């Protein structure tokens, strides 16, 4: 064990919990391993870094899960470089901290990618009715910030005008002023430069003459966001999911600028996640609560899909427009879509090789 990985979470003693954590009740803050602060300091007094950390923990003058884990997090490595042991420590620490903060049993999962699995997603753009249930299901599942101060949604749904070659529209709306056209046709410049209506709010959807295009992270095979990350906190997992180690993120937002799909969101302020709405089933690289100053995005619901379950947006879609599965399995739903439907990828010319496919019947 290196000096950096000393289990700081065990620096607790029998004092009652600090009032900084509301839900803390006497007894909860007790160490699981029975190591008291005194014992800890005594055992590690010969190690300089450890003594420093021990002192730091003492200086915070609290035994609550938040303070101790925050100190330990400063000395935590990049998730990709952590040993299994270090990962376990980080997870234990986070579970204790989140459980105390949100007043429920929070689990932080580290399930790795399965062998022989490459996740793929297919969306039937002809079926989508623009009801935005996927957007809200995603928030429900992935612990995004909500409320007036900061609202974070990973999926956005664009309403676009249906193009048509009609006599009436001949000679109008040629999109030379607007750059690349991605929707409509030469006469009806719908969806120019992927601009559609984001804030549409009709009484009922779908509206006539409209189609809807939901956009989220495309889980690129060659992700521009990964290329630009100066600290390599965002990277691509073996099963194709592009993830972020929130603890290693420095908040430079280079990835947001690099992403051609507007898939990433930044926590400008402290995220607002009400305790009763918090989803306690989390993954380290997925939906665990984020902090101020870090970037987040869709992870194909890594906490669900790594355990075999469909992503939340797939399950919620009331018209069944969303399909998900293993691209390496010819029997999977996505592979069947690729085999028998007309498919396109968004901004395929960018050479990002998205694992998100749009199709029509």
């Amino acid at each position, binding site marked *: 064990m290196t000096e950096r990985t000393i289990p700081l979470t065990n620096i607790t003693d029998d004092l009652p919990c600090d009032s900084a954590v509301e839900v803390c009740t006497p007894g909860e803050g007790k160490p699981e391993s029975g190591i008291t602060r005194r014992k800890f300091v005594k055992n590690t007094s010969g190690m300089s870094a450890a003594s420093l950390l021990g002192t730091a923990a003492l200086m915070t003058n609290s035994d609550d899960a938040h303070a101790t884990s925050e100190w330990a997090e400063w000395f935590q490595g990049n998730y990709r470089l952590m040993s299994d042991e270090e990962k376990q420590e980080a997870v234990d620490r986070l579970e204790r901290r989140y459980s105390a903060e949100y007043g429920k049993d929070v689990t932080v999962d580290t399930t790795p990618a399965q062998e022989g699995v490459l996740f793929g997603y297919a969306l039937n753009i002809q079926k989508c*009715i*623009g*009801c*935005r*249930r996927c*957007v*809200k*299901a995603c928030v*429900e*599942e992935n612990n995004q910030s909500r409320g*007036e101060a900061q*609202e974070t949604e990973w999926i*956005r749904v664009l309403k*676009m*005008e249906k193009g048509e070659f009609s006599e009436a529209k001949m000679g*109008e*709306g040629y*999109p030379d002023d*607007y750059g690349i056209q991605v929707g*409509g046709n030469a006469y009806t*410049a*719908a*969806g*120019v430069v992927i*601009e*559609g*209506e*984001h*804030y*549409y*709010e*009709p*009484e*009922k*959807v*779908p509206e*006539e003459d409209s189609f809807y295009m939901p956009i989220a992270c495309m889980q690129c095979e060659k992700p521009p966001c990964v290329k630009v990350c100066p600290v390599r906190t965002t990277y691509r997992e073996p099963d194709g999911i592009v993830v972020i180690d929130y603890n290693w993120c420095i908040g430079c937002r280079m990835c947001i600028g690099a992403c051609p799909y507007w898939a990433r969101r930044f926590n400008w302020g402290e995220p607002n996640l009400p305790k009763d709405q918090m989803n306690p089933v989390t993954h380290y690289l997925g939906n665990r609560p984020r902090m101020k100053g870090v970037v987040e995005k869709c992870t194909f619901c890594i906490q669900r*899909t790594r355990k*075999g*379950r*469909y992503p*939340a947006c*797939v*399950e*919620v*879609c*009331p*018209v*069944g427009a969303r*399909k998900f*599965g*293993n691209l390496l*399995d010819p*029997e*999977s*739903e996505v592979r*069947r*879509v690729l085999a*028998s439907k007309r498919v396109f990828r968004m901004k395929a010319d960018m050479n990002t090789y998205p694992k998100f496919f749009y199709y029509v*019947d």
Partner: protein
Amino acid sequence: MRVLDTGIRRSTSACLRVIRCGVLVLGLTTAATSVAQDCFESRQNASKVTVKESADGQVNVKCSETTGGVLWWGDPYDATVPMGEMPIEADYDHGEAVVKSRTKQLAMFPVCGTACHNGTFPPPNDDKTPRTLTMHTDVVPDATNLQHGRGAIWCLDCHHSETRNHFTDHSGNLIDMNEPQKLCGKCHGPAYRDWRGGLHGKRIGEWASTGKKRWFVCTECHNPHDVQQGERNSGFAQLESEPAPRLPKGLENADHERHHGGH
């Protein structure tokens, strides 16, 4: 539930003007929370689901507060039964398949095959011209103008003429009401084929091709008595959408996005 919600919201805004009715609002809110929450899965006014809490504090579904639609499944297999044998037309999925029982949701189902439709009554019309219904007008408002099949089909092409709590296939054999796919597949071949392969329709549960899934059957998303939906003809009824994202700070409306694209 939805109606009640809207009622509360309306009375709340009215109350802001008349402060002394605060007590009334409180009373209404309490009444609303004590009622078991119902929401719908795919089709409004059908596929109803009631929120219930399991022993470990998890809920079976979470519902949208704004539209009353299901937003999240805690238990994807809640209230399901095995899908049963399906004819093998091709090499389809081999995973475990379950469906939500329709017959359990129909209050009159246990008696409808004996109490009213006893095999001889009401007498079927031999010339396939539907009469004006006196009952079930909530399901089919106008039987003489059925919004399915463009005038080419009538009631007893799908409903079994003698055993009314079943459907019928082309040969007059019975089809269980929990298996409408066997009925719809009679005419809608391509959609049925896609559905068997997982391309059409919806499944929840496990993504693996060998995993356990709950399959949504035809009538959970489409209304068989009104598939045409007037001019839209998409097969889906229109739904209320979830609220739009918040506007960026400083922006008062979204007019800007309407000026792009089409002139």
